[in-house]
């Protein structure tokens, strides 16, 4: 039994731990920096500006249709780097494992991380592992940090949205959140939905090639599109108007949200981005998005307007206008 689960010894720095690292991590992530066996990675520094981002990942369930905590931890941080317009160079990863966590699950997660990193072309160059006693964590927590380089001339920031700019999304909204909700305990509706988890830096690179003057990029993860737009509006001191009829939402997501009393605008995404660019370049940016497999369902959803209060409003499909809900807490399903 103990041989197949994580024990406190695995985090104690002794022989069990070096065995684990040797067997699992190095073998899966396999790259020259990690293989040197140091506690750090020494790399050549690229010219220009660096970007760094970090993200901790806790999720229930650990495995879900379309991904798992491992691929999510890689994509999440790569995307944070990519939202600066940066090209990711390397990743670090830290695990917190709960005593008793099945080794087979850890292996599955690590392999999935390695696959995700390899597909993205970004090595995991250093890492750390700690084990906490049973009950002090929920299975596994993963923190990843990403380093990247931002090219000359790219100047993307949440404060750069200007009245007249166009707002685009790279694809359908709410897929990840609904896929996760559908698996959680007590939720029995059937969906064939998969999480949209994906690394977006290559999509971003082709967007920048088409429209170098993108003003803002952000991935609408927790809190969904509405939270993301409100953050950008507040940072830039502008308002936004989006059109309900233009929002790409899968029918299955719309149906599940309806059932649960949730708004797809508030539901998390893991492989989507919001882009804001000068209005006259919107069509060019849309074309670049449509050209990439991760942007096939991209759409221009609205525009930036003047508004000192930083309000995000929605034009309903019936022609009425209302505020977009800025969610205060966790989105809880309603009853009636």
């Amino acid at each position, binding site marked *: 039994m103990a041989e197949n689960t994580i024990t406190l010894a695995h985090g104690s720095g002794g022989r069990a731990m070096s065995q684990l690292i040797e067997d699992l991590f190095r073998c899966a992530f396999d790259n020259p920096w990690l293989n040197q066996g140091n506690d750090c990675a020494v790399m050549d520094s690229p010219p220009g500006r660096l970007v760094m981002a970090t993200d901790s990942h806790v999720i229930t369930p650990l495995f879900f249709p379309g991904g798992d905590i491992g691929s999510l931890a890689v994509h999440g941080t790569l995307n944070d780097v990519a939202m600066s317009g940066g090209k990711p160079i390397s990743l670090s990863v830290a695990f917190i494992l709960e005593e008793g966590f099945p080794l087979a699950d850890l292996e599955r997660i690590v392999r999935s991380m390695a696959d995700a990193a390899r597909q993205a072309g970004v090595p995991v160059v250093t890492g750390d592992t700690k084990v906490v006693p049973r009950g002090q964590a929920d299975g596994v927590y993963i923190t990843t940090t990403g380093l990247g380089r931002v090219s000359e001339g790219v100047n993307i920031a949440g404060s750069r949205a200007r009245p007249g700019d166009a707002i685009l999304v790279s694809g359908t909204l709410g897929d990840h959140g609904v896929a996760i909700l559908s698996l959680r305990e007590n939720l029995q509706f059937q969906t064939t939905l998969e999480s949209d988890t994906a690394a977006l830096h290559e999509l971003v690179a082709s967007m920048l090639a088409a429209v170098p003057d993108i003003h803002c990029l952000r991935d609408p993860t927790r809190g969904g599109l509405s939270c993301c737009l409100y953050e950008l509006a507040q940072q830039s001191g502008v308002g936004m108007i989006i059109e309900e009829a233009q929002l790409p939402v899968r029918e299955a997501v719309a149906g599940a949200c309806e059932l649960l009393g949730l708004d797809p605008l508030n539901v998390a995404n893991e492989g989507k981005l919001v882009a804001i660019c000068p209005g006259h370049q919107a069509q060019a940016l849309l074309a670049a998005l449509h050209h990439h497999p991760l942007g096939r369902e991209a759409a221009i959803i609205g525009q930036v307007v003047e508004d000192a209060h930083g309000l995000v409003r929605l034009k309903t499909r*019936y*022609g*009425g*206008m*209302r*505020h977009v809900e800025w969610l205060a807490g966790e989105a809880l399903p309603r*009853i009636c």
Partner: protein
Amino acid sequence: MKHLSEYRDAGAVRQMAAAIAREVDAARYYRFMEFCGGHTHAIARDALAGLLPENLQFVHGPGCPVCVLPGERVDLAIALAQRPEVILCTYADTLRVPGSGGHTLLRARAQGADVRMVYATTDALQVARDHPDRQVVFFAIGFETTAPATAVALLQARDEALGNFSACCNHVLTPPAMRAVLSGDQESAPARVNGVIGPSHVSAIIGLEPYTFVAHELQTPLVVAGFEPLDVLQAVLMLVRQTHAGRCEVENQYTRVVSPQGNPKARALMDQVFLPRPSFAWRGLGRLPHSALGIADDFADLDAERRFPVQVVPVEDHPACQCAAVLRGQMEPRACRVFGRGCTPESPLGACMVSSEGACAAAYRYG
């Protein structure tokens, strides 16, 4: 899903709005109360008021089950949840309703009480089966819509001899609340409205007959309506026409779901398991006679209030809270002094800010 799309067709909705605008008399003032929180939410979400003439106004009613749950019942839920042997199961929104001192089930859970969110009574039964060593209390809230499901759960628990399951019943009844709000009582003046948009799902259970007093006695037209934008607007047009013709009738716009007799089977289940309480406290409306259901003596063994005797005292609402006026359709949410300042969906002072169906939450979220 598909069959709904015709009730959301943008062209049809605009046409209906235009038809209302054509018929509305610019010299008159129309105040229509949507009783049900589902309608309040739909009207706000689809920004329907903005499609209609300015002299036609929606007035929000008290039909949000979370909003009318009084502080003392929240205290009861917390007291039950704090018993070490108890797992308290309830619908999500209940977790955030403030009890005395602003205490909530959510906070009780953070402090160690075992409170679980369920989506259906069947989930609560399953928790009881999965934890034979614990006492599982289903804290049941809702109007006539959710009461039949609670009845079925109690019958099922009895069938299975599920000795560790019980329900704490807070089901409330629509017609008494409608009467209190529309006709006023010793606590408050009547809401002055020209018509009522009647509940959708509640009516599917109770039918149309219970509303006759609204039309005949209170001389107010009532149209039962569905939740889709076209449903609501069609009901508005029907109310406008009744108003102009000087008619006061109970009409049914939602014929695809609501039959005049309602659902006699569901009512029979409720009659078997529940007994009307002599009176029950509503947030904002005070104590209303025969306005809620308790568990019948035949099912006393499954009644959490009898299994775990807990004393709670009536709770005064926060002094700044204007929920009573809002729930009675006498005040617009924004007119409340604490709206959006002391009271937000994140930290609600009053219950109307809790559920997305509450008038204040709808106004806050959708502006």
